[in-house]
């Protein structure tokens, strides 16, 4: 969890809670204008869009199959004929492997983030709205999860469930539950005391409707910012698990497992290790800049 991620925990201003449609549109316009003004945020957005397009169109962007072995072309250097980014230790095309690896890395990172955001938000909502012993039980469980160093907890969960893609996703999602839980609980506690929520309660609106219509809607902005700031860390954590051989298992490969298998060849072909790592770095940088830009645009006080 980076400081950027921690700073996102501040509850937001009331976005779309009350006011006419024109006011909301204008607020969104302000956010978009503020976002566009940041070169770093726009660069982050461009990186994320470019990587997503590459991942989605992977089969169209390269004629090679990522698992097509050619032992006559092992460890070919970048800019080799037919292999613009060279080949790996089995003669497989690096471009194809990086593009197809992007599909796994981005999809798994986004899926794990969604899982964490859903579970964490539910915990935060329950704690904030339930109060009393429910709040106490959830927050003490969150304290316990936070007592573990971030990556160590993921490793401990993998130790229990066993290595694998799905287990890796579950592990990093569980590790990030406290992050979302605390943000949503904080927002719920702030929103619960606002006059319009108390007015709705006085009018006899049910607690469930209150939670969904008024409280949850106000949590959406901080959750969106938190998700954007968190995806980068998720991609790194999942790549790290794969690098250790505890995440994605062969024959499927992501950027982390590509980096791991290439380690022994860095002496003769440094590009096989440099390129997957560069891809991870660019993806994480893109999401971090995008998240920072979104957070700044939604709450300029935090800049």
């Amino acid at each position, binding site marked *: 969890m980076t400081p950027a991620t921690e700073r996102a925990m501040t509850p937001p201003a009331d976005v779309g809670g009350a006011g006419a449609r024109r006011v909301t549109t204008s607020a969104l316009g302000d956010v978009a204008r503020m976002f566009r003004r940041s070169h770093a945020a726009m660069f982050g957005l461009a990186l994320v869009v470019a990587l997503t397009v590459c991942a989605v169109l992977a089969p169209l962007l390269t004629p090679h199959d990522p698992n097509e072995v050619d032992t006559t072309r092992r460890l070919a250097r970048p800019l080799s004929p037919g292999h613009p980014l060279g080949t790996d230790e089995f003669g497989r095309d690096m471009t194809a492997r990086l593009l197809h690896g992007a599909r796994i890395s981005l999809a798994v990172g986004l899926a794990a983030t969604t899982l964490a955001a859903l579970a964490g938000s539910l915990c935060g909502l329950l704690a904030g709205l339930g109060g009393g012993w429910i709040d106490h039980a959830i927050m003490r469980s969150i304290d316990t999860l936070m007592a573990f*160093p971030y990556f160590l907890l993921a490793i401990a969960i993998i130790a229990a469930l066993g290595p694998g893609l799905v287990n890796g996703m579950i592990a990093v999602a569980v590790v990030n539950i406290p992050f979302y839980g605390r943000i949503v609980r904080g927002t719920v506690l702030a929103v619960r005391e606002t006059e319009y929520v108390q007015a709705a309660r006085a009018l006899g609106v049910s607690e469930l409707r209150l939670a969904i219509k008024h409280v949850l809607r106000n949590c959406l902005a901080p959750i969106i910012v938190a998700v954007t700031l968190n995806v980068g860390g998720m991609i790194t954590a999942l790549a790290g698990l794969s690098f250790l051989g505890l995440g994605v298992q062969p024959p499927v490969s992501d950027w982390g497992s590509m980096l791991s298998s290439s380690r022994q060849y*860095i002496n003769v072909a440094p590009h096989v290790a440099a390129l997957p790592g560069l891809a991870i770095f660019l993806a994480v940088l893109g999401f971090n800049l995008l998240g920072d830009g979104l957070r700044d645009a939604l709450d300029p006080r935090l800049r």
Partner: protein
Amino acid sequence: MAAVGGGGLQGYVVRRLLLAVPVLFGVSLLVFAVMHLAPGDPAAIMLGAQATREDVERLHRELGLDRPLAVQYARWLGRVLQGDLGRSIPLGREVLPEVLTRFKATLILTGGALLVALVIGVPAGIVSATRQYSWLDRLSMGIAVTGVSLPVFWTGIMLIIVFSLMLRWLPSAGMYSPYGGDFADLLWHLILPAVTLGTASAAALARMTRSSVLEIVRQDFVRSARAKGLAERAVVGRHVLKNAVNPVVTVLGIQVGTLLGGAILTETVFSWPGLGSMMVRAIQARDYPLVQGGVLLIATTFVGVNLLVDLLYAVFDPRIRYE
């Protein structure tokens, strides 16, 4: 410092120590669960496919797996409190001495990385904040956002390619030279892993130091200090840094956790004989007692570090201990 109404530093320390007890209890529950969350019979998993039914049943009895979970937990906790972390089947050795030896190496690596983070991160953050919006500020924050985005395992491999394989300046693996070495040799081997592990933390620390200093710089008392003609160096040194230290200490505490977790990856890249690389092998070998021992030791250390951070707050800011 005099105690006020049961407050004071002593009362604060006792309250914080008591708060750590339920957290440690939760940690012990989770560590205990590592073996019991595994699908299937832990004894059969630990012994592998080649084990006979008799072997599995014997281990089952030895571990007390036929008893209720609450009884198993109580027995396990009782043994842990007496320093008995069990026995590693693949290694054929007691877990405690094994993890303690390895933990020493992890602490050396983490300490080195923390030093790197402090030496680079804090000055970079101060310079950035005191020259806000200058090219120096933009450059250091640009480097910082790059730093927090670098995957530690890739940074390590890139540093090995440049400094070990191309320039041949620094060793790429191990804690000492193959035929043993002294303290200088250890420091020589520590440079690359510590820089690798400390880079991301330095970046995070620089960002936090910058925002803390910026927040303090805008306070009235800083304006007053400037208005009375105090030199800028004295304003920053005497008034700003003293007040900006607590958020930085908080991040430092969090970074210790990041470093302890990141050490697992760094140790694997540099073949550093620490707890992290041992645990990765233990997970692959399904050596549950070794994994539990390692996780417990690191998590307890992290709880201790957080406790220390909270106590440091009270030392740096006397208002906290009276809250």
